[in-house]
């Protein structure tokens, strides 16, 4: 599959389209064009490949193209926005599987050493991506059977499988051929399951970002196998993207990648007990009282968390924001990087509910202006607004970036109960002097709040 000079130049054109497409993703206004540029680049790449390669057998190509296109189009059309993390996990996994199969199809045992190494890398990364994404998909669907059927592997077992996979790769590099390749791939398929199973559901945003990166790196490795420049360029662009998103997620959770993948959150021993934090200090409020408070507010910040998405309350919160704006208040949304179940997920959910994207603000931006906020309304978020991250160096979440709603004039927290978030620690915010708790189901409480506001 070595390319002719003209083919390389046409692939360069496709690479440029990918780069320009990603560049356009820098702004919501230009992003749709960027996506289109990427798609045109892909079409060009496919046409060029079919034109230059000596294709003697079209039936199988056509079958694969039709099946894949239909399946892709149908899933893209019907997937719910709340299920986007699962969709991306599935796409990651299929990309990994494709790299695994393609490298396998091109394997010859007398290849140059570099090609054999690339083949092994392509197969192993592709296989880990495939099964790792499958486990992530199941975990994101919150199917409990995965925890019953697949017990988290003992770390020593995982290390043994990893060493076995590595040994099979060495065998492959020394001319082991198909047997070595598929042994390495089988080991890597197992490894993908063993590595992903112990990771908790709350850490899935990191896992799918990382698998996103792997799917790109697997494609780049396949490019080395085939001697195809475009695969290398496109694969490494995606690899870089996944790496950056992984880092952003880790920083937002204040954990190292190693800690997410292999560690556990530190036990909450260093933190005060819930009783001593909350005793007698938590003020419960009513929708009417909060409506009166909001009625006089000029500047309102809404901080949505995972609980908002679970309660499917995006549309209700949009209505509430519209009602506040109709009364002359300025309403903005402060979005923590890990507010949804994948990077940027909460933004998509609010955009779907027709919230203007210019109102979706990043954490740093809202923190800078927190002193001017009259009412901060926290819906379904807990750890990401815990001031202890700032104030208590002994806290398990010490140093984690949080939205400083405690610095707003008044904070209203819509929450079912005082139960802790993923970090398992009490939140002193709930006992703060300027904080009111509005207990109840997120959606129902917001509906009542909007009704009370209209009556006020």
């Amino acid at each position, binding site marked *: 599959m070595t390319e002719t000079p003209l083919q390389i130049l046409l692939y360069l054109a496709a690479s440029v389209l990918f*780069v320009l497409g*990603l560049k356009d993703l820098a702004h*919501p206004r230009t992003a749709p064009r960027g996506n289109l540029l990427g798609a045109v680049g892909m079409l060009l790449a496919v046409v060029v490949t079919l034109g230059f*390669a000596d294709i003697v057998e079209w039936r199988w190509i056509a079958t694969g193209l039709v099946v894949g296109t239909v399946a892709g189009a149908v899933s893209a059309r019907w997937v719910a926005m709340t299920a986007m993390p699962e969709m991306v996990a599935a796409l990651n996994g299929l990309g990994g599987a494709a790299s695994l199969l393609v490298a396998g199809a091109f394997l010859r045992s007398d290849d140059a050493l570099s090609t054999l190494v690339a083949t092994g890398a392509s197969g192993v990364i592709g296989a880990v991506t495939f099964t790792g994404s499958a486990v992530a998909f199941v975990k994101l669907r919150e199917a409990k059977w995965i925890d019953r059927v697949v017990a988290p592997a003992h770390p020593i077992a995982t290390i043994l499988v990893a060493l076995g996979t590595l040994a099979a790769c060495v065998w492959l590099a020394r001319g082991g051929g198909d047997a070595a390749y598929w042994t390495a791939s089988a080991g890597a398929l197992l490894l993908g399951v063993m590595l992903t199973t112990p990771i908790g559901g709350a850490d899935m945003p990191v896992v799918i970002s990382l698998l996103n990166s792997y799917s790109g790196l697997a494609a780049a490795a396949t490019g080395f196998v085939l001697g195809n420049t475009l695969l290398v360029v496109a694969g490494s662009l995606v690899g870089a993207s*996944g790496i950056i998103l992984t880092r952003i997620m880790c920083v937002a959770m204040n954990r190292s990648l190693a800690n997410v993948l292999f560690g556990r959150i530190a036990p909450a021993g260093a933190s005060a007990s819930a009783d001593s934090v909350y005793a007698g200090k938590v003020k419960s409020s009513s929708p009417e009282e909060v409506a009166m408070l909001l009625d006089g507010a000029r500047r309102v910040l809404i901080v949505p968390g995972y609980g908002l998405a679970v309660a499917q309350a995006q549309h209700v919160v949009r209505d509430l924001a519209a009602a506040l704006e109709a009364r002359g208040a300025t309403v903005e949304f402060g979005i923590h990087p890990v507010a949804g179940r994948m990077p940027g997920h909460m933004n*998509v959910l609010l955009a779907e509910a027709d919230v203007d994207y210019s109102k979706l603000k990043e954490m740093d931006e809202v923190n800078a202006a927190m002193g001017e906020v009259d009412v901060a309304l926290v819906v379904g978020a807990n750890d990401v607004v815990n001031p202890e991250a700032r104030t208590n160096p002994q806290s398990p979440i010490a140093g984690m970036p949080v939205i400083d709603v405690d610095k707003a004039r008044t904070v209203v927290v819509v929450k079912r109960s005082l139960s802790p978030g993923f970090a398992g620690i009490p939140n002193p915010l709930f006992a703060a002097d300027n904080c009111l708790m509005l207990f109840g189901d997120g959606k129902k409480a917001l509906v009542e709040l909007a009704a009370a506001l209209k009556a006020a």
Partner: protein
Amino acid sequence: MTNLLFAAQTSLPTSAQTASADAAHAAAGAPPGLDAHDLALFVTIFALSLLVGVELITKVPPTLHTPLMSGSNAISGITVLGALVAAGGGAGGWATILGTVAVALAMVNVVGGFLVTHRMLKMFRRRA
């Protein structure tokens, strides 16, 4: 298991040799795949593309991180190029089967990725 080029040379010698310079390499006695010079160039391309990727992606605002992931996912379906050659090379046997399955999987990635990204990006708008 039969592999692509071996099968191609036995069943369809002429097409295999024009289809792939690897086959020509093999016929000339040189090892197939990238030689040291090409390999160095490929490593160069890889490293520079990673750097370009980092520069581009750090400019993407958090609000678009989900479409970024689905869109870049579609781009990683670029593996379809290799899958097409494997499926259409006329090698028969395993290479064709692996290639065909890979074409289907990669196309789900490509088509699903670009379309779902388009669907999401349409939602990001300013209200008048």
